[in-house]
């Protein structure tokens, strides 16, 4: 099937009125959680996974994908209006966006963010459509050793991109891998770490782990210091960009799209890194770098384009290899599995309507987002006045009820409490939660492929180095670690991430 007929197949799925409706619901919810600080797309998608049970696979995944990229849009709105990024990747947008808002230019800042995001989202979706099929074909030749090396690469690159201590990030990954081993052993059926509870034989419920670590832990974090948000801008007028604005944002949008598309494929929050990378690139290339930090429109358009492009291209490893690039994608894997589909290179051939339908829905979703975000921005500003003290009891209850409704298993809810407190402690002590969830999802895969590869090679570990693809992947993984610990790069990393505060 050539690209054109594939894409038209996709649109025939995505333009189904029912799917458009759920795509709309997805981007609406995404914008909402993006706008509301204290709840991010990871916790939301985890809580909504049970709801998608009753939908068919296309509709469910179209909605969940919409939540994810919708949150990228919503996060920028709060960043601009109240200097509070609703989503981590919007932290950069807050630097110049909020300054623009204070100068009465909130409208153009929002418009620049939306236009940049729309353009970047569309281009990156096209890249996804163009590059996913050949990559999936290549991945069909992957055996157990290649998959093992690929997972190792994914895990290690995610450390290089995480900010904070590398040792702690490594520790979180290994802890995640270990937690992924709870349950019956795949080869022998031996129950492991189950405390003799039959409910744990199937492993820890990953929705419970996700809402514990990302939902409950975050609530506890917010209860440390309660303060009300202040909405500085009550009404947003005049969304139009001047001709001068348009001239100034064209190149940043293009560069941001390019950077974001490439970095988005990398595991471990490529969308955050790409926003920072785009900001520092624009600052360096600008003729007036002193304007940055004081309301430069380039500093809004570039990073916003970059993080949206990255949000789209981060679907590439998921859809072609079945390997998640970050926690939200790990949850998407869960959604595939709930629907009885094994994510990986076969999806594109066995479920073409699903594969192309999701891609086509991204264009529609991006268009819906522009409509949702520009004319309706006043509505989102109102949303911000919902106080946190009303919001978080809702999050706790939704998490409990949603998790319980998956398997009617009360141990899943005990798991939320356990991971809530463990997650809170670890986050408080300076560890990032994302690598833990990534390790948790990849743990069983890693073990399975390692053991299978060792059986193929009759116990000879050289198999990982003798097979060329596997060796290349491992070499890249090694390079990622070396790069991450090199002192000069470490200083750069610190510089890049320091602007977040």
């Amino acid at each position, binding site marked *: 099937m050539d690209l054109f007929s594939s894409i038209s197949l996709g649109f025939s799925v995505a333009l189904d009125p029912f799917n458009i409706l759920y795509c709309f619901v997805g981007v609406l919810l995404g914008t909402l959680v993006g706008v509301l600080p204290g709840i991010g797309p990871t916790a939301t998608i985890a809580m909504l996974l049970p709801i998608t049970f*009753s939908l068919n696979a296309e509709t469910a995944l179209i909605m969940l994908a919409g939540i994810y990229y919708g949150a990228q849009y919503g996060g920028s709105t709060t960043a601009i209006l109240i200097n509070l990024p609703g989503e981590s990747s919007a932290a950069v947008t807050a630097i110049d966006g909020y300054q623009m808002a204070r100068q009465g230019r909130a409208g153009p800042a929002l418009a620049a963010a939306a236009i940049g995001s729309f353009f970047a989202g569309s281009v990156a979706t096209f890249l996804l459509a163009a590059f996913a099929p050949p990559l999936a074909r290549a991945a069909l030749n992957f055996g157990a050793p290649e998959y093992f090396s690929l997972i190792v690469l994914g895990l290690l690159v995610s450390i290089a991109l995480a900010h904070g201590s590398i040792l702690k990030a490594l520790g979180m990954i290994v802890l995640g891998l270990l937690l992924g081993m709870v349950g019956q052993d795949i080869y022998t059926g031996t129950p*492991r770490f189950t405390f003799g509870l039959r409910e744990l034989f199937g492993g820890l419920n990953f929705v419970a782990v996700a809402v514990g670590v990302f939902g409950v832990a975050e609530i506890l974090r917010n*209860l440390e210091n309660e303060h009300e948000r202040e909405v500085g801008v009550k009404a947003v007028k005049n969304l139009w960009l001047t001709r001068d604005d348009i001239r100034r944002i064209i190149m940043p949008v293009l560069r941001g799209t390019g950077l974001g598309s490439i970095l988005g494929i990398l595991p471990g929050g490529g969308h955050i890194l790409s926003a920072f990378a785009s900001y520092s690139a624009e600052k360096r290339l600008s003729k007036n770098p002193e304007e940055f930090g004081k309301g430069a429109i380039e500093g809004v358009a570039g990073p916003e384009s970059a993080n949206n492009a990255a949000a789209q291209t981060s679907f590439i490893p998921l859809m072609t290899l079945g390997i998640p690039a970050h926690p939200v994608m790990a949850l998407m894997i869960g959604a595939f599995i709930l629907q009885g589909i094994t994510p990986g290179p076969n999806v594109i051939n066995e479920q073409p309507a699903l594969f192309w339908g999701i891609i086509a829905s991204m264009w529609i979703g991006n268009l819906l987002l522009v409509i949702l975000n520009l004319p309706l921005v006043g509505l989102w500003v109102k949303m911000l006045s919902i*106080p946190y003290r009303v919001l978080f009891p809702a999050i706790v*209850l939704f998490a409990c*009820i949603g998790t*319980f409704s998956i398997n009617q298993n009360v141990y899943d809810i005990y798991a*939320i409490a356990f991971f809530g407190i463990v997650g809170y402690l670890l986050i408080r002590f300076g560890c990032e939660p994302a690598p833990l969830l990534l390790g948790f999802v990849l743990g069983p895969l890693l073990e399975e492929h390692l053991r299978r590869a*060792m059986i193929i090679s009759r*116990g000879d570990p050289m198999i990982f180095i003798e097979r060329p693809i596997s060796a290349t992947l491992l070499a890249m993984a090694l390079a990622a670690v070396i790069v991450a610990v090199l002192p000069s790069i470490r200083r750069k990393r610190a510089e890049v991430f320091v602007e977040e505060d």
Partner: protein
Amino acid sequence: MALNASKNDLASGAIFVAFGAYFALEAMRYEFGTPFRMGPGFMPIVLGGILVALGIAVAAKGIGKPDEEAAPPWPWRGIALVLGTVLFFAATIRGLGFIPVVLISGFVTAMSSVKNNLVSALIISVGLCVLCLLIFVVGLGMIVPLVGPWLRF
């Protein structure tokens, strides 16, 4: 007592060591296997060992480098009430049923914020109960007793 070390690093290191040690020791009871045919204990023992080592390294790195910022206050009330609610929910959802559990849980969680008082917490919990009932039971057809067996006479 002035501790010349990063409390954050020591604490996170200790958590890693504890988890690593638990997994490795527990996995000793499973068959280790050979590299050719790895048993169920192989990966947990190896990874548990790595985690213990990482935990020690994290803690060691923190020695001599006290935290620059003072730790934020512990949200004791939040921890107790939020976690308590989750545990309460798990323990009673089958027995008390959906409506009483959601009402009580919503009320107690709302009280964990110092900004809520009895009246606002009550309003929040009733509102949430109606909302959850509409979304999960009416909308999604979740099968759960609305009032559980413990409350039926």
